[in-house]
């Protein structure tokens, strides 16, 4: 049964020739009209993910991977097309950011857990496990502004892996922390997979997608150009990076 269905989704951003973010800039620039370029990030992308699958997404920088994840998580709205996500999602999109620096770890986990759809009772129940996973029990009441980037990232991992919902959406997250902590994350990831959680994972790292995914999608030009076994598609991705023109041409021919 499909847990994610994406059908012909399009998303474009209007890029102005000059940024104007203030009333003052708009007033002073009233006699200097701007040009807008349309950047079509997603161009009719279609795919589905079944419950229990671990699907990886690869593609060159700017091909729309992160925008796609944000649309799936309900953060961005698509311009057109249909998106159906039939399960609660734990989105982990930017590990090091997204905290209130003036609050301690406990309050930040309460906030992030809340926006991820967890009740206060659920958050309190899992708080000890989150702090233990992050190895931050001693610093639970320290404001995040005093955390190092590594500590903040560990807390992000911990929320992702201990407060997880049915569907885990991960954007480049196996890249932070020391070897010991990474091994702990990988073990936890396997536990979650064994428990039947569905995963959608974006990564540029071939070893990660081949090891952790059951299927891989290759995105180019805002659409899925190929999908299949992780090893085959990862090789296609590498070919694309080595020789972008050849890669694109070969997709067009298919």
């Amino acid at each position, binding site marked *: 049964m499909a847990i994610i269905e994406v059908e012909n989704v399009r998303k474009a*951003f209007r890029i102005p020739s000059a940024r104007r*973010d*203030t*009333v*003052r800039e*708009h007033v002073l620039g009233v006699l200097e009209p701007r040009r807008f370029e349309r950047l079509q990030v997603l161009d009719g992308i279609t795919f589905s993910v079944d419950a229990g699958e671990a699907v990886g997404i690869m593609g060159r920088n700017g091909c729309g991977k992160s925008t796609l994840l*944000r649309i*799936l*998580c*309900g*953060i*961005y*709205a698509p311009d057109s097309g249909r*998106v*159906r*996500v*039939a*399960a*609660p*999602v734990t*989105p982990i*999109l*930017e590990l090091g*950011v*997204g*905290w*209130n620096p*003036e*609050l301690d770890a406990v*309050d930040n986990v*309460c*906030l*992030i857990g*809340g*926006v*991820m*759809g*967890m*009740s*206060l*009772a659920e*958050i309190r129940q899992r708080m000890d496990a989150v702090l233990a996973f992050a190895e931050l029990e001693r610093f639970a009441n320290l404001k995040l502004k005093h955390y190092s980037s590594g500590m903040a990232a560990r807390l992000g991992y911990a929320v992702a892996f201990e407060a997880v919902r049915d569907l885990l959406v991960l954007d480049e997250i196996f890249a932070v922390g020391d070897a010991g902590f990474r091994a702990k994350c990988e073990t936890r990831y396997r536990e979650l997979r064994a428990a039947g959680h569905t995963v959608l994972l974006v990564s540029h790292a071939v070893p990660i997608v081949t090891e952790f995914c059951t299927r891989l999608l290759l995105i180019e030009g805002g659409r899925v150009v190929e999908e299949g076994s992780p090893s085959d598609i990862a090789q296609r991705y590498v070919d694309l990076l080595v020789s972008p023109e050849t890669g694109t041409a070969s997709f067009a021919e298919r």
Partner: protein
Amino acid sequence: MPGPNREALLGLAWTLVRTDFKVRYHGTIGGFVWALLKPLAMFALLLGVFSFVFGADPDYRLNLIIGLFLYEFFGDATKTGLASLATRGFLLTRAKCPAWILVLTSLANAVLTLAVFSVIIVIFLVASGRPPSLVALVQYAAYTGAFIVIVAGFSLAASVVFLRYRDLNQVWDVAAHAGFFLAPVVYPLGILPEWLHAYLYIWPPTPVIEFARAVLVRGDVPTLTAHLYLVGAAVLSLGVGTLVHRRYGPRAAEYL
């Protein structure tokens, strides 16, 4: 995709209010009391200066404290509401989160302060030998309720517009300062020509301050038309605020 359910939303709302209190007042009652000192000091200062001008009016002191505290709420709540999505934007980019809950909960501490201000106003009235009747208190509560709705409507709209115009807070700061003198806070409305009153009533704090003074100090009840005007202003503000928020709120994360 499924968003947070009702239980999760209530939990999130409570966490937002609690953590906001913690950040603003260092999590202590002492911090909250410290924040109350600013309007009280302002009251003492304005009373000291303007009692030379309006000292003949025996109600001036009571009118001043009502006007000052209500305007303090208006200034604080609109400023906080306007910046609410920008300051709490990190939550919008983490997961699907209804933007309105970030806006409305940001007003909670200003509403709490208004409640404390209202208790202080009642203490002043009692100490002045003018204890308000229960009916007057209910009417006052209704006016402040309408005031909160007006501020909520403004905040819903301004918070999403602020993401596109990042100096809107400075523009609003100037407007709110000018509005302090436009509303009859430090002066009695009666000193201005009557034809001007109708225009001053367009500025939302004016009817709320005047109606509150009428029921608490003078013991008058504003006319039905006046009440309908206030209700209309609240409905209009919330309606327009909701429409603007629904139009731009879903794309708020794209501007963060």
